[in-house]
């Protein structure tokens, strides 16, 4: 039973560039939530995708966008990268937009230089 898979594991980008992060949810899960975890801090909610729609969004600018595909996998896109976007990006999957049954991936470490 596959857990949550995130790719890539590490990424280095230059300011102003665009990046796409990917997440495949755990088998049986249909909801994907994305979190940003800056160094030394707890995660911050970016958004949740359920039934291919953005169900809820945290306090992040429009530079952060996402998508969910019919197979429930998801992408997180960040445009016009800033140094402050450097963080660990965590994907969590669950069933039926619930937050009490999260399974997390190991994250993508994004460094913006």
């Amino acid at each position, binding site marked *: 039973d596959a857990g949550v898979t995130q790719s890539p594991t590490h990424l280095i980008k230059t300011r102003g560039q665009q990046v796409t992060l990917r997440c495949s949810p755990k088998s049986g899960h249909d909801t994907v939530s994305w*979190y940003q975890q800056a160094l030394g*801090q707890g995660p*911050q909610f970016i958004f949740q995708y359920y039934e291919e729609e953005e169900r*809820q969004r*945290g306090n992040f600018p429009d530079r952060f966008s996402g998508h969910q595909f019919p197979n429930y996998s998801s992408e997180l896109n960040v445009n016009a990268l800033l140094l402050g976007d450097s963080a660990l990006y965590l994907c969590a999957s669950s069933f039926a937009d619930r*937050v009490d049954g999260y399974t997390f991936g190991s994250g993508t470490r994004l460094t913006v230089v």
Partner: protein
Amino acid sequence: AQTVTQSQPEMSVQEAETVTLSCTYDTSESDYYLFWYKQPPSRQMILVIRQEAYKQQNATENRFSVNFQKAAKSFSLKISDSQLGDAAMYFCAYSFNYQLIWGAGTKLIIKP
């Protein structure tokens, strides 16, 4: 504002002893979940224990137990018989509006 406070940035405990990690939170909701997650160097968040706010009985999972004080909005984690594998960052969180609100974490060091 929805907040979680973990007042201990770092805690250390001798192997086989007991340690308690503190957490307070602020929410206006009456029904929510509370969580303790563990994040080892592998970076993956691992659920340690979960508490439903409407249940008065404190949750337990083997060596892990919580002291949930709803009126005080306090949710501490007790780890008994600490093991070297317990060393990690521990995060307290609660559910709100399709998301989890997280604290800044407590680094737990286990001394052999």
